[in-house]
């Protein structure tokens, strides 16, 4: 493929990337603290948790679904993991169970949607409430704190100077990219979102794949829980509130359509970074959290408005 054809095909992602670059340039002009290696790593690290959740959300949204439960699932996975660690369960099995809890909650979402025929919004809205309640009940509302250094290394480690959460984020995005573009699972993800009925009639086991996709989304929320717990050295039952909104925003800013059938996972990464850079830059500029909310809301709106305008002009 020629470069030009490539740009034409992925124009949307370049648009988002361009937006990110402009944003960075503006921050660089406004504050000297922004463009330093340590601050950029800081931004990447802060973005990692939302970005990892958003990677899973991208799969779900491409199928024309949505997952509102990720924040609660994160909390639930986190407290389960933390309680296991505190009971002395070794690291690897504890991690496997913690992430597994996320995966299975996701699968449960998937089953409600495929077998129970619930709209994803409703199934995951219900699960959001149930998983949050479960996390609170499990812990009696109290955080679980204090872990071994080997566990904390998952968030505090810096092999080659790069924070672990950033490495995890990059690994997840390359895997997600591979899954979405090269494999059957990816193809069916797009097909289900584009026309579910036609996909069923083509003989694809849509129930299986959809369930799996919600499982992946839940599993990534579990992974995010691991990093968050290690980072805060504490698992809170009230962690992750409203993360679903940030993850959805990152996905949509990154060019994935809520109508399903289209989207790119690297766009999502850029979307998450845009939100991260904004939050970071606005704090560096000492803009109040009130004004930050307004600005972030406007950025979501303007990003997608521009996207729509571009799409229209390209047709």
């Amino acid at each position, binding site marked *: 493929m020629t470069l030009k054809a490539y740009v034409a095909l992925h124009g949307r992602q370049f648009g988002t990337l361009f937006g990110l670059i402009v944003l960075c340039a503006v921050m660089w002009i406004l*504050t000297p*603290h922004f463009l*330093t290696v*340590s*601050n950029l790593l*800081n931004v990447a*690290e*802060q973005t990692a*948790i939302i970005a990892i959740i958003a990677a899973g959300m991208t799969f779900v949204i491409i199928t024309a679904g949505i997952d509102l439960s990720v924040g609660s699932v994160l909390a639930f996975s986190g407290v389960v993991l933390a309680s296991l660690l505190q009971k002395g369960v070794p690291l690897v099995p504890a991690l496997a169970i913690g992430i597994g809890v996320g995966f299975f909650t996701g699968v449960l979402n998937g089953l409600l949607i495929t077998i129970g025929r619930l709209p994803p919004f409703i199934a995951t809205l219900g699960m959001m409430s149930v998983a949050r309640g479960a996390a*609170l009940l499990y*812990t*009696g*509302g*109290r*955080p679980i*704190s*204090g872990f071994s250094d080997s566990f904390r290394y998952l968030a*505090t480690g810096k092999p080659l100077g790069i924070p672990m959460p950033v490495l995890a984020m990059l690994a997840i995005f390359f895997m997600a990219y591979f899954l979405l573009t090269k494999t059957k699972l990816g193809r069916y993800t797009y097909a289900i979102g584009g026309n579910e009925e036609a996909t069923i009639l083509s003989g694809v086991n849509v129930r299986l794949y959809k369930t799996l996709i919600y499982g992946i989304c839940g599993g990534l929320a579990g992974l995010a829980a691991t990093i*968050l717990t290690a*980072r*805060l*050295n*504490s698992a*809170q*039952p*009230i*962690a992750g*509130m*409203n993360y679903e909104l940030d993850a959805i925003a990152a996905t949509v800013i990154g060019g994935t359509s809520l109508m399903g059938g289209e989207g790119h996972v690297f766009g999502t990464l850029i979307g998450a970074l845009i939100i991260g850079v904004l*939050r*970071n830059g606005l*704090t*560096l500029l*000492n803009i*109040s*959290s*009130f004004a*930050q*909310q307004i600005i972030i809301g406007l950025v979501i709106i303007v990003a997608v408005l521009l996207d729509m305008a571009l799409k229209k002009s390209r047709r």
Partner: protein
Amino acid sequence: RNQATSDGRPTIALVVKTLNNPFFNDMQKGAEEAAKSLNVHLLVQAAEREVDVEKQMQIIENLIESKVSALCITPSGSKEIIPAIVKANKAGIPVVILDTRVNPEALAAANGKIAAFIGSDNLEGGRLAGELMVRTLGGKGKVAILEGIPGHETGDSRLKGFRQAVAGSPGIQIVSSQTANWERDQGYTVFQNMLQAHPDIQGLFACSDLMALGAVEAIRAAGKTGKITVIGFDAFSEAREAVRKGEMTATVAQFPADMGKIGVESAARLLKGERIQEEVTVKIQLITRDNLNSNKP
């Protein structure tokens, strides 16, 4: 080593839990006054939601990046904030903790250091409220509690103090204890429902004035104003007004403006290389109709 602002003044950052709560607004005001009189530059930041400790940690990280001279923090989570404190330690930025205590064992375990703690004793406040409740009800009666969001150090201490104080009086029966999530409208609804289940409730302890004020409206709607002993916490101006009108019996005053002021003063003195007191207990006081006017915040 610490970067000063362009005009040469040091920069002190105050990171509160949230700015949409009058308690922290007052703290901000006290801090601003101190900053002005000491001629230091003050930044005030907060997460959108009071319990969002991850956001608070990000804000602190960002402030460390922007090389502030000192940090004053009211932790959204008393253990969860420790990694951020450690980061500040590593960057050589002194940390003063306000209002909510950091868990000392966890801090020690993480090799973290704080320069000072400035706050009031929430446990003591809860106890004061409990004792007043026992006294007002004559040691006998049905009492309800509106809790804050569970797992919150401040709320938990207040609750614990209150329960300790009433535990000594077997005549006091806690008939219902539910969270209203620090919110005014939930305070209304939850207490309305409690009244329904227990129409003979004689006392209410709310872990914050916001919830207490919601409950006051529910009591008014039930036509029971003045018949129920309502004790809140924080002593907002509105709550004081309610005490004056007899809608509330008392509220436990903390003095957030003092905390803000002392916090900034301590940080400024640290930056000048002076030694400071490691623990300052800001007074805590029951505000009733009798002492209402003598104790402005």
